[in-house]
């Protein structure tokens, strides 16, 4: 369970959230919805630790998550529209360096399987500069499979379904299914709700802003 | 102390009282400094009357360095305690400091012509001052290089602090370079042996320019505070207009 207590988040000098409280349920998928510019990405980036909170705390059960950044870094995956893939490396090399940065000792086999899970095995040795946007997105999402092997608790995903075709969305749904079975928590910002065939919690930021 | 001053209202109240005092002190020290500097001080035995340029050159140089130091300190306050006022202070100090560094370079060059025979000699002090000028320039350029003002302030503050660490090293290295390449035989401007009678106008001018800068900083910070208020009011009235339109 993730608790946000009296959270104030600023972007530049503009206050986006003011003394806000929220609760994100465990082992569930929570979809953050709302109009453009309402603060979906800001919220995700703040929880991921990229935007420092002006005030307030975020707790995972009883632990303040930003007290121990190393531990929190091991506990989440954040993916947004910027894929974090280097253009001059292949899809495989990108995945490998990324997993090493997370501190994981991944075997070749794990990486292959991760690419297979998003149907990217054929593109393994393609340079990212040659990839289409859809392929880049899939390459980024292959990290989700790796996290299943390493007991990660949180997925923070910002518009993960953009640029994905029908088949990849099915694969993505499968990954989420497995993650939820492993007692993982998904926090997802999206405005197309019909793409997901789960029971999801809805966090509508439009309601909050009134 | 800064924490206590950082409240804009308190800042306004206190400065309201001391501002006239500062102005009076500035005028008194400036006039007496000019009097002693131009009329009632001895000629240097080597440089003759040309030494009188010292009374504007050295105070400017001193202020350019001191203002950079204060700029960096106020940047530390801004980054550590996040007082918006500290940012206003540093952004007003920067152009004033830059002006003084330019004045130092220009008067130094005017002093150099009769002493060295050329407008510019790569003397250690002048070279360090030139570098200082570029630190000011870098700060000002960087603080205006971002779309949102607050990003520029934060980033440029870091630059100012890096500069504070680096400037003594630059100063040292330039002195080192100077001794390495040129045995010191030429007349040093602002040299070490100063007559007591020369000290009086020098100190008076240093005081005059310091109090002048203090006055300018307070005045400009106040202006910026008012401008901020105006912006907030404008934003509010625009919002209200917008709301009315939406209702209709």
């Amino acid at each position, binding site marked *: 369970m993730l608790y946000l207590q009296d959270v104030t988040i600023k972007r530049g000098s503009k206050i986006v959230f003011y003394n806000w409280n929220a609760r994100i349920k465990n082992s569930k998928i929570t979809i953050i919805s709302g109009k453009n510019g309402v603060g979906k990405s800001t919220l995700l980036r703040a929880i991921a630790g990229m935007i420092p909170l002006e005030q307030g705390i975020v707790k995972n059960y009883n632990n303040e998550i930003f007290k121990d950044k190393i531990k929190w870094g091991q506990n989440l995956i954040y993916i947004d529209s910027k894929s974090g893939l280097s253009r001059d490396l292949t899809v495989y090399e990108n995945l490998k360096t990324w997993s090493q940065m997370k501190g994981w000792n991944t075997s070749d086999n794990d990486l292959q399987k991760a690419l297979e899970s998003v149907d990217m095995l054929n593109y393994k040795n393609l340079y990212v500069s040659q990839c289409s946007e859809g392929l880049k997105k899939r390459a980024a999402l292959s990290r989700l499979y790796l996290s299943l092997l390493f007991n990660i608790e949180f997925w923070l995903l910002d518009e993960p379904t953009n640029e994905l075709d029908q088949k990849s969305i099915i694969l993505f749904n499968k990954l989420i299914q497995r993650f939820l079975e492993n007692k993982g928590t998904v926090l997802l910002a999206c405005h197309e709700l019909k793409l997901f065939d789960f029971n999801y919690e809805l966090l509508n930021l439009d309601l909050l802003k009134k | 102390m800064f924490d206590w001053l950082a409240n804009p209202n308190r800042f306004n109240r206190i400065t309201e009282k001391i501002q006239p005092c500062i102005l009076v002190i500035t005028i008194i020290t400036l006039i007496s400094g000019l009097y002693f500097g131009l009329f009632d001080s001895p000629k240097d035995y080597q440089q003759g009357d040309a030494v*009188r340029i010292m009374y504007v050159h050295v105070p400017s140089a001193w202020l350019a360095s001191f203002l950079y130091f204060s700029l960096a300190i106020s940047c530390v306050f801004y980054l550590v305690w996040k007082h918006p006022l500290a940012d206003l202070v540093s952004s007003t100090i920067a152009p004033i400091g830059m002006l003084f560094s330019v004045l130092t370079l220009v*008067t130094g060059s005017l*002093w150099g*012509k*009769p002493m060295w025979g050329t407008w510019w000699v790569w003397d250690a002090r002048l070279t360090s001052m030139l570098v200082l000028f570029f630190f000011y320039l870098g700060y000002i350029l960087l603080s205006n290089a971002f779309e949102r003002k607050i990003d520029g302030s934060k980033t440029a503050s870091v630059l100012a602090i890096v500069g504070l660490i680096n400037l003594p090293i630059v100063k040292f290295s330039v002195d080192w370079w100077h001794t390495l390449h040129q045995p010191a035989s030429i007349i040093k401007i602002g040299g070490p042996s100063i007559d007591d009678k020369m000290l009086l106008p020098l100190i008076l001018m240093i005081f005059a320019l310091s109090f*002048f800068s203090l006055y300018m900083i307070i005045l400009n910070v106040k*202006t910026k505070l008012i401008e901020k208020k*105006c912006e907030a009011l404008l934003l509010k009235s625009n919002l209200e207009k917008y709301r009315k339109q939406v209702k209709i």
Partner: protein
Amino acid sequence: MNESFWIMQGYEIYIWPSYVLTLLSLGLLFIHSTKQSQKAKKLLKQLSKTKN
């Protein structure tokens, strides 16, 4: 005020410009800032009037 004061051993073309430049730039800075401050104060007055 005799002539030798103004001539200063022939250094006058260096000394006077440096004093004039310094005082002039300080004066300009002073005038500019004062104007700016008055402008801002005026604007604030206007704004607070229209609000009420």
